[in-house]
Structures are given as structure tokens and as C-alpha cells.
């Protein structure tokens, strides 16, 4: 085969180098953002033994803690903090609401334990009806902007309860409702030993 190609090479008219660099930087940037988003979503829930980041719970009107209308976790050092996520539309929450209130009242006098009710993705009129129905007296407030629930669990379901010790370390996670007052006390009491 001695056929010679009789075509003349086409002049090179590629994309300018600066444009190529720009496109690659943009593409890598987007991939980086995507990776960061996926890592964030994959990031596990706050695990037992880790320090709980500080947050502030603004309480429903009518509720207060130490005369203030909001509670800051970092102000509750030296206390065991029981953080309960609930919602008025959540049926399982109803099974534990009375037990939580009873448990709270059993510790209220000691001043060593604080219960915080965090109302998750709820509407205030129904939330108020719920709190009245179960006569909840411990501090309760809405999870404004779902900021608190995102600290604990990005895929939060309700009810969920997190127990934080006196050093601000997460010691227990309860997914689903408690079945009895004794069950709640069995988690809190060991954290109060020696106090």
C-alpha cells in the first residue's frame, strides 16, 4: 500500500490555554463542593463520647429557666442534661411524654439534672396543645431553623433523646420513645453517682 495521504493538516484551532485552565479550575471547584456536601451528609450523627457543641434553645413563651427565656447548653455545666426531641404530630412521642415529665419532677429538686424539650418541625398552636395536654413543666422551645437537631442528627426522627453529662459529653442516645420512668432514671442515675 503506497497510497500517500493527500490531505493537508488542518490548522490547529484549540481552546486557548487560559480558557482550559479556567474550565478545569471551575470543574474541580464544583467537584470539591460536591464532595464536601456528600461528606457532610455522610458524617455520622454525634456519637457517644463526643463533646456536644454549644447551642441555645429559645423557650416557648410561658416557659423559663432560671428566670431567662432561653437556655444555653454551656450554662448547664455540672448538670446532667436530657435533651428530648419531640413534635405534636408524632404519635410515639405521646407514649413517653408523661414519663419524661414524671422523671423531670423526680430530679427537679436536686438541681443536678435539667430536661430540655426541643420541639422539632412543629407548629406552635399544636405544640402548645401538646404541652398543655401532658402538663410539661420542664423548659421547652422550638428548634428554630432546625439548628439544634442538625447538631445531633441530620436525619432526625422523633422522638429522640440525648443525655449529656456534667462535662458536656454525650453519654446516651435513645432513638424512639422511653417505655417507663424507671428506664429514664436507669440512664440518669449512674451519671449522678459520687455527686
Amino acid at each position: 500500500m503506497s497510497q500517500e495521504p493527500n490531505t493537508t493538516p488542518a490548522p490547529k484551532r484549540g481552546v486557548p490555554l487560559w480558557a482550559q485552565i479556567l474550565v478545569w479550575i471551575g470543574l474541580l471547584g464544583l467537584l470539591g463542593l460536591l464532595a464536601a456536601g456528600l461528606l457532610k451528609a455522610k458524617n455520622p450523627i454525634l456519637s457517644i463520647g463526643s463533646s456536644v457543641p454549644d447551642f441555645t434553645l429559645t423557650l416557648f413563651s410561658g416557659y423559663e429557666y432560671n428566670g431567662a427565656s432561653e437556655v444555653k447548653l454551656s450554662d448547664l455545666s455540672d448538670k446532667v442534661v436530657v435533651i428530648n426531641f419531640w413534635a405534636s404530630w408524632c404519635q410515639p412521642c405521646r407514649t413517653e411524654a408523661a414519663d419524661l415529665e414524671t422523671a423531670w419532677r423526680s430530679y427537679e429538686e436536686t438541681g443536678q439534672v435539667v430536661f430540655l424539650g426541643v420541639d422539632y418541625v412543629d407548629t406552635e398552636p399544636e405544640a402548645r396543645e401538646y404541652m398543655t395536654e401532658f402538663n410539661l413543666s420542664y423548659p421547652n422551645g422550638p428548634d428554630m431553623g432546625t439548628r439544634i437537631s442538625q447538631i445531633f442528627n441530620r436525619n432526625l426522627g422523633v422522638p429522640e433523646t440525648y443525655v449529656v453529662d456534667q462535662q458536656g459529653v454525650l453519654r446516651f442516645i435513645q432513638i424512639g420513645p422511653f417505655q417507663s420512668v424507671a428506664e429514664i432514671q436507669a440512664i440518669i442515675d449512674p451519671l449522678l453517682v459520687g455527686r
Partner: protein
Amino acid sequence: MKTKNIFLLIFFFQLFAATLIPSIAVSAQQPTPSDDEVNAIARQLYCPVCENTPLDVCPTTACHQWRELIRQMLAEGKSEAEIKQYFVDYYGARVLSEPPRTGINWLVYVVPPVAFLAGVTLLFRAFTTWKRLTKEPITGADHSSSSGSGPEPAEGSGTAVDDEYVARLEEELKKRN
């Protein structure tokens, strides 16, 4: 005479009261917003519990409560923007069907059209390059008069090149055999 005046006074008072009562009733009774009015706002919102389901069609109790809240706020005379802002303040910006045009969210609005334009440009350049490449072999063989693109080539077009090439190919094959 005095009693007559008193009766007249009572009559006018009743008349005045009768004209006043309907206006009070009207002002006390706010019109209940219709489902369409509620859903017009609800379809722009997503409940975080039921991700990927617009609020207007979401069947859960939580979403029902949200819709009722929208209805209540509309009845109170709140505007669409005020209601949406309330939901953003209460539940976070992720409840909006369209991300707010701030910060990194701008990427959502900027990247797709830029990527589309870049794609169109790339395709245009590719097509023009391919078109040029299909033309160039013919012009390169001194058959510049050819259009060379139709099913029936014009006279003096690439057919001559093909014939010459085929002839040489056959000759080569004969030599080998």
C-alpha cells in the same frame, strides 16, 4: 311630651345600633382562605420531615398542620412573603423550594446556564471542525470545484479520486496474487 322624647331617643338609638351591628359582624368575620390560596404558598415549601414532597401534596399530619398554619396566617392578613419568611425563620431555608439567592446558593442559578452555554459553544466548534475536515480531503486533491457532500457527486468531483484510488488498489492486489 317628655316620654315622647324618650321614645324617640330610644328609636334613634335602635336605628343607629341596627346600622352598626352588620359592620361589626363583617369586621369580626375574616374570610377563610381557600385551599387554592393556601396551596399557592404551600407548593413553594417543603417540610423537612417529608423531603422531596411539596407541602401542597404532602399527606402527613405535620404537613397538614403547616397548611393550616398558612391558612391561619393568610386569614390574619399576612402576605406571601411574610409567611415564607416565617417558615424560613422557624424551620430554616431548606424548606423553600427555590434556594434563596445568597452566598453559595448562587451556584444553583449560575452554573446550569453557564454549563449549557459552554456545551452549545463546544458543540458548535466541534461541528464546524468536522465540517471543515470532511471538505478538506477533496480540496486537497486539486478538485476544488467539488461540493462533495451530496449523494450524487457532481462531475469532476471526488469520484475521480476514488476511481484512481480503486484502480491502484486493484493493481496492487493483482501484483500480490
